[in-house]
Each structure stands twice: as C-alpha cells, then as structure tokens.
C-alpha cells in the first residue's frame, strides 16, 4: 500500500517536473528548465529505489544531477543566455508537436495495456540492484561494451575540447 503511495507520488512528481522542463507556463528561462530536470531526475531515482535498483538510483543522482545538469547550467552561464526570446511561437509547430507526441503516447499506452505483459513478470524479485552483482555482470558479461564506452568517452573528450576551443586567429 505504502509502495503504491510512493509510486504514485514519485511518478506524478516525475511527470509533472518533466512537463515543467518542457513547457513551463511561467518561465522560458533555460535555468528553470534545468532545475526542473534535476527534480525529475531525483524523483526518478525514487522510482528506481522502489524498483530495488539502489545503485542505479545513486548513479542517477550523482551523474545526472551532479554532473550533467551542472554542465548544462555551466554552459548556460557561460553563454550568458537570457530567457528564450519571446519570438512569435509558430502555432502550427506547437500544435503539431502536441499532436504527434499525443498520438505516440496513446499508441504506446494502448500497446502497453493490451500487451498483458504483467503476466510474464515475476512478482517477487530475488535479485537486487546492488553494486556487487552489478559489477560482476558488468565486468564479466558486458566487458566489451564497457571497453567501447571507454573509447566513446575518449572520443567525447577529444571532441568537446576540439569543438569548444577558441579559434586561434
């Protein structure tokens, strides 16, 4: 029962904050969006905990809220971006965007509801998302993607430096 309550709370929080990231009626400032993104991430971490993914919940908060969002904020500050310009929003693009997203949502939810996937799920979990089992799997079964990720990170590093470096004229 408590779990249900937590789920509803966190789920609603996640969705509302996400919505506020995307469409905040009060502010079009990117900083506001970034702050709501942090809230979204944190409430998602709550959902992770509900799903027994304790380690991932921590990673989510640390990496996303602690690094990614900070990076965003840093860039916002660096570029000194004011509020999103109050250009005349193209009604068409907004409505069509809502329409498309809505249609995808409806289809996805219909699919989920009609799938009866719950029947395939096991109700009582045995494993828990602790660092130890995760690490074992990561470094045994998933070593190759992990190594590739290291290259990816190297590439990202090189790329970020190359791209953001000031031109030497």
């Amino acid at each position, binding site marked *: 029962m408590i779990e249900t309550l937590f789920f509803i709370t966190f789920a609603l929080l996640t969705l509302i904050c*996400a919505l506020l990231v995307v469409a905040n009626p009060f502010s079009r400032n990117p900083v506001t969006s970034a702050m709501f993104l942090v809230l979204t991430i944190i409430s998602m971490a709550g959902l992770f905990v509900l799903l027994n993914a304790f380690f*991932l919940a921590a990673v989510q908060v640390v990496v996303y809220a602690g690094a990614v969002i900070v990076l965003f904020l840093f860039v916002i500050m660096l570029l000194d971006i004011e509020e*999103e310009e109050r250009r005349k929003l193209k009604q068409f693009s907004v409505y069509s965007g809502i329409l498309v997203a809505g249609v995808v949502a409806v289809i996805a939810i219909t699919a989920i509801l009609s799938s009866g996937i719950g029947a395939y799920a096991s109700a009582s979990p045995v494993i828990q998302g602790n660092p130890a089992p995760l690490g074992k799997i990561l470094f045994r079964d998933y070593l190759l993607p992990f190594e590739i990720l290291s290259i990816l990170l190297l590439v990202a590093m090189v790329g970020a430096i190359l791209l953001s470096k000031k031109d030497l004229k």
Partner: protein
Amino acid sequence: MIQFEHYLIVSALLFCIGLLGVLTRKNLLVLYMSLELMLNAANLALVAASRFHDNLNGQIMVFFIITVAAAEVSVGLALIVALFRRRQTTNVQDLSELKL
C-alpha cells in the same frame, strides 16, 4: 498493487513529454534537456523490466545509457558553445542555412 504496466506507462508518458519538448522548444539547450528526458524514459522502462523480470541486464543497460548520455551531452554542449560563438544564438530556428 503496482504492476509492470504502470511503470511502463509512466515511462511512455515521460518519453512523449520529452518528444514534445524536442518538437516544440526552440532553445537548443532546453531541446537537449528534452532529449535527456527521453533517454531517462528508457532508463525507467529498463529498470522496471529488470525488476519484474528479475534480470539485472536491464540495469547494466541503464548504466551504459547514462554513460552514453553523459558523453553525448558533453559533445553536444561543446557544439552548442561553438555554435554560439559563431552565430550568437542558441535558437534552433536560426539553423536553416542548409535547406531545400
């Protein structure tokens, strides 16, 4: 009782909210945040599946996604910075030299 479906629905909604942002917001940074939301929707679905299938592989995948997202963000933000330096804008609509 909270079922797998419920998590999936939340995840799908989150995905669509992200999509909405991508489709409507003009600021590249916010647009990028919306993309992060979409990735997070996948994360949520994976973690939920991991839990309900009793299978940690999903969590590993989430781990990868978070890492990739970080890399993507770093490159993306660097690109946005470079663009801003060049064009003094972060509005996606200003990027329409290449067309037709």
